[in-house]
């Protein structure tokens, strides 16, 4: 045997597999941020980016520190977070409930899916004056705008997720004589959870977008109000400080959902 194993002349088979498999590369994300910010800082300092095009990152940081030390940061953040939490909670919970009803009942589906499709593309910002009349210029209209904006994507994601629940599991439940409520609560809901959570990622990002719109009318404090005021004064440093806060908010929300996914969806392969 060993005689036959001596090296033969021939072409080695070329490796052509690999790739297409995302791996964890933790440091790349932060690196992109650092490089971009360093480029901006260097560009604004050396002058090839004019002060009107971009604010200097160090100035934005100074503004941020100023916000922090004067306590204005929390004065703006507190009402915004409340609006976000209340609006998104209403929109998401009603959205999930309606989505499940659409997923379970053919009549509700036939009745509501066209309605949701009609509401989805309406820019909710355009309805703000209407909401002010319906719900008052105070917090009501702001909650309503954010709730309305998160509602539609949540509905669409939820009924899609319910449709994707493995029917054989539902048949199994029926074959063991489980009640309708048990099947919904113990099979349909957990089965739809992955889809509902990934829908929530999108809806909550939309909620943050709408926060600025909600604070266009009748808001003295709030991140959105702060950004809009800075924008109208063309105060780029403050504008950017506000935008950075919104970005951070988005990262925090995404992290929290990722954490919930790991907790609730550990059963997935």
């Amino acid at each position, binding site marked *: 045997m060993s005689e036959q194993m001596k090296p033969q002349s021939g072409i080695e088979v070329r490796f052509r597999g690999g790739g297409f498999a995302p791996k964890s590369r933790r440091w790349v994300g932060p690196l992109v941020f650092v490089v971009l910010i360093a480029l901006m800082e260097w560009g604004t300092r050396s002058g090839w980016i004019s002060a009107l095009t971009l604010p200097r990152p160090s100035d934005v940081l100074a503004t941020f520190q100023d916000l922090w030390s004067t306590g204005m940061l929390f004065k703006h953040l507190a009402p915004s977070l409340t609006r976000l939490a209340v609006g998104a909670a209403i929109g998401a919970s009603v959205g999930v409930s309606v989505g499940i009803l659409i997923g379970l009942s053919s009549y509700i589906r036939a009745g509501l899916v066209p309605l949701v499709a009609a509401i989805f593309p309406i820019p909710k910002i355009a309805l703000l004056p209407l909401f002010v009349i319906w719900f008052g210029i105070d917090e009501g209209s702001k909650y309503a705008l954010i709730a309305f904006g998160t509602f539609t994507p949540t509905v669409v994601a939820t009924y899609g997720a319910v449709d994707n629940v493995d029917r054989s599991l539902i*048949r199994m439940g*029926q*074959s*063991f004589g489980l009640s309708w409520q048990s099947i919904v609560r113990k099979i349909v809901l957990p089965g739809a959870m992955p889809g509902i959570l990934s829908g929530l990622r999108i809806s909550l990002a939309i909620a943050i977008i709408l926060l600025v719109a909600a604070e266009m009318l009748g808001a003295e404090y709030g991140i959105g109000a702060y950004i809009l005021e800075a924008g109208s004064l063309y105060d780029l440093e403050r504008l950017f400080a506000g935008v950075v806060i919104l970005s951070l908010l988005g990262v925090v929300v995404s992290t929290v959902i990722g954490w919930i996914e790991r907790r609730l969806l550990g*059963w997935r392969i």
Partner: protein
Amino acid sequence: MDLQLDRICHAYGDTEVLRDISLEIPQGRIICLVGPSGCGKSTLLRMIGGLERPSAGRVLQVGEPPKDSLNPLTYVFQDFALLPWRSVRGNISLVLEDHGIKGAAADQIIEDVLARTKLSDFAKALPKQLSGGMKQRVAIARALAVNPSVMLMDEPLSALDSQTRELLMDDLVALWTRQPFTAVYVTHNLAEAVRLGHAIVVLSRRPGEIREVVEIDKPLAERGYGDRDLEEVQKHLWTLMRDEARAADEELLDV
């Protein structure tokens, strides 16, 4: 409790699937349904357990199911149908919860069925951690937990490799020998049918009709891998089915 199929016919639209099936399923025996693919054997099984309605004919329960039977007609599915988010224990307690069995009473049943299926060490495992054979044993444990009077098994070993299939067949025989249960066992594997069936019902290709019922008297516990007499029966079954299977294979699927 016996089951009786009374002239069952079924059609999907214009496609006739089952024609005039009458069959007795006596207590304590395993009835195997074999037939070429598409002959409607799984459909028939779904009708026996009330998951599908035949176009004509009835499925009758003769006699009362035992009092302690929580779910007289209980399925074991080919794809296991375990909830991936529940542990082995949770999957079994799922079918007890709706009958109000919780706490110590549930624990007792769960421990008993896990012991009978040799799964006691895996109560906390999630389905994704288990092999195919183990998953099917969990599904069998779940079926045993509701104390069924008839087990309806839809190709329970078809998704498993052949070694696992042998092992699980031995397990099923051991379970039956310890406590005889009634079962309707659908399979396309003739070796399984001759190992586990007291009677083997051969269906023709679509529309499925009963071609022959082959009885095997040899006790389950005495049957083994590659027994001569069983091979004879298997050969006989295959001659019955060969032409049907070929014709069924060459049919265009327009269902």
